[in-house]
């Protein structure tokens, strides 16, 4: 019987020739990740059991990205605890402010994760790295602590759902629209405990940044991981960055799937997820008149250079509507610098937007753009739960950088057609 890519990676890391869905395995880990919210809890657990050393100081990543630059005293204390732990254990990948980027942007960019890896992160969007043909999944702090001590984690081998994206992508439709569409179709628990494997001619031609966006949101359908087999696009991205040897896995022809779902992309228009669940998606033509107060372009979902370029393409020579606060957040210092050199900052600033230092910030209602009661935001982030960006009485609409930029210009949710057809 054939195996899926997810099963193959898990088998290899468990030292087994074969695994089957439902099987409980113990797998060796290539990378263990935590952020400034989840690491303190893990460090407490680590110390409580009296652990003295980490399994491998080169394989642990600590990224204080959520409430940084520290927004208040408590956050500063949390980061201080992480910093001291990192120094004490000589953690190689501790990202101090200045090097720090949003975790799921910075790890791939710095070549820390790559094809064939098995990765756990105490952050649910760790599934992002599946875009490189890796098995990556979010866990809690206790799993992170155990991972830091042993370099291993237990997993139940997930069943896989195969998504086949066919047809031609419509203009201004990208990875964000495809994944929102899929979540709208299967629901926020449609892939609960399962691997979401993205395939098909559209995926074969999809740029790596869009692939990150898609795998990033696997968790929004309840998925354990999102995954795309490494191909030439992947290898081009990892070449020169990834310091270990990439291992390329592909699903066998006769691999077994719990479901196979096909989409005709020629029918998919830009998508918007309405409050308060990512599954409440609508095509842009069905949105109606939704006045907004704020636009956020950034996050681990859409804070990469190509996302900023798309936003700039629409904002160039335009102004954001007078009542709109438009916040642009490059995902990493490198993206920040590239965007700056390409002149994107001028475009954003001329349009009346602001550009923030890399941070999660408003994505989780932390800082740098928290919403008041009754306010609405269009965000390129991944969650629109109640209170996600601030007041429980506020609303978040999820969309692509193209829709976010167009919405900023129009002051209401708007798609590329409305801005370009002037």
């Amino acid at each position, binding site marked *: 019987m054939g195996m899926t890519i997810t099963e193959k990676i898990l088998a290899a890391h468990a030292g087994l020739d074969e695994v089957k869905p439902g099987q409980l395995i113990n797998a060796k880990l290539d990378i263990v990740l935590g952020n400034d919210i989840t690491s303190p809890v893990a460090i407490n657990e680590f110390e409580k059991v*009296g652990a003295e050393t980490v399994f491998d100081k080169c394989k642990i990543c600590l990224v204080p990205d959520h409430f940084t630059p520290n927004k208040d005293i408590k956050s500063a204390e*949390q980061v201080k605890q992480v910093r001291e732990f990192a120094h004490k254990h000589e953690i190689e990948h501790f990202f101090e402010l200045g090097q720090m980027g949003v975790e799921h942007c910075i790890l791939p960019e710095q070549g820390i994760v790559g094809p064939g890896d098995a990765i756990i992160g105490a952050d649910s969007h760790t599934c992002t790295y599946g875009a490189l043909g890796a098995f990556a999944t979010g866990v*809690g702090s206790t799993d992170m602590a155990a991972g830091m001590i042993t370099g291993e984690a237990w997993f139940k081998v997930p069943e896989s759902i195969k998504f086949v994206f066919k047809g031609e992508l419509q203009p201004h439709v990208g990875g964000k629209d495809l994944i929102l569409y899929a979540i709208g179709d299967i629901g926020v628990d449609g892939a609960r405990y399962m691997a979401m494997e993205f395939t098909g001619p559209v995926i074969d031609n999809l740029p790596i940044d869009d692939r990150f966006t898609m795998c990033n949101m696997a968790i929004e359908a309840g998925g354990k991981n999102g995954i795309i087999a490494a191909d030439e696009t992947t290898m081009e991205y990892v070449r020169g960055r990834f310091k270990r040897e990439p291992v390329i896995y592909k699903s066998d022809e006769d691999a077994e799937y719990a479901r196979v779902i096909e989409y005709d992309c020629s029918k998919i228009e830009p998508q918007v997820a309405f409050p308060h669940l990512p599954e409440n998606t609508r095509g842009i033509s069905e949105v109606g008149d939704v006045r907004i107060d704020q636009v956020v372009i950034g996050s681990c979902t859409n804070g990469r250079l190509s996302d900023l370029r798309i936003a700039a393409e629409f904002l160039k020579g335009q102004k954001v509507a007078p009542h709109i606060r438009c916040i642009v957040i490059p995902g990493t210092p490198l993206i920040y610098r590239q965007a700056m050199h390409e002149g994107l900052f001028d475009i954003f600033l001329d349009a009346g937007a602001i550009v923030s230092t890399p941070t999660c910030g408003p994505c989780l209602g932390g800082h740098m753009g928290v919403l008041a009661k009754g306010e609405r935001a269009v965000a390129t982030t991944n969650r629109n739960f109640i209170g996600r960006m601030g007041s429980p009485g506020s609303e978040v609409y999820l969309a692509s950088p193209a829709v976010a930029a167009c919405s900023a210009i129009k002051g209401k949710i708007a798609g590329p057609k409305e801005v370009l057809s002037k």
Partner: protein
Amino acid sequence: MILQGKVWKFGDDVDTDQIIPARYLNSSDPKELAKYAMEDARAGFAEVVGQGDIIVAGKNFGCGSSREHAPICIKAAGITGVIAPSFARIFYRNSINIGLPIFESKEAAEAIEEGHEVRVDATSGVIEDLTTGKNFQAVPFPDFMQELIAAGGLMNYIKKNKMDK
């Protein structure tokens, strides 16, 4: 282990942002977090919940973020168990790891109402609605998870099995 308490009922897809909003995540102290348990699902919950109470919720409980603060704050607020038709993956894992008993039962989650008195045998997974007299059986845990639970959570298990070598 027997749990017995009063039921608080919640709907489908209660996400971790409702269980513990991110605005309180600048602390990892369970007592501090407990003050805000379930706040965005039901304002003021932490003030009314009693020690030993039980949450009964709809499908996909705990979806969203990986924050372990979610099961931690529920436990620290006095809740001794959660019953739902299904749990989101990371929440499920975190709950077992930290020792918050959770029980999967669609029938129980649908039949039990707010305010009912419920008794759960955590070992057998038998759920009794003492208000109506109805009994339900939760989906049993796989052996390995039973082992984790019996060890008192993942860290105790690691300490026993991996660290003393």
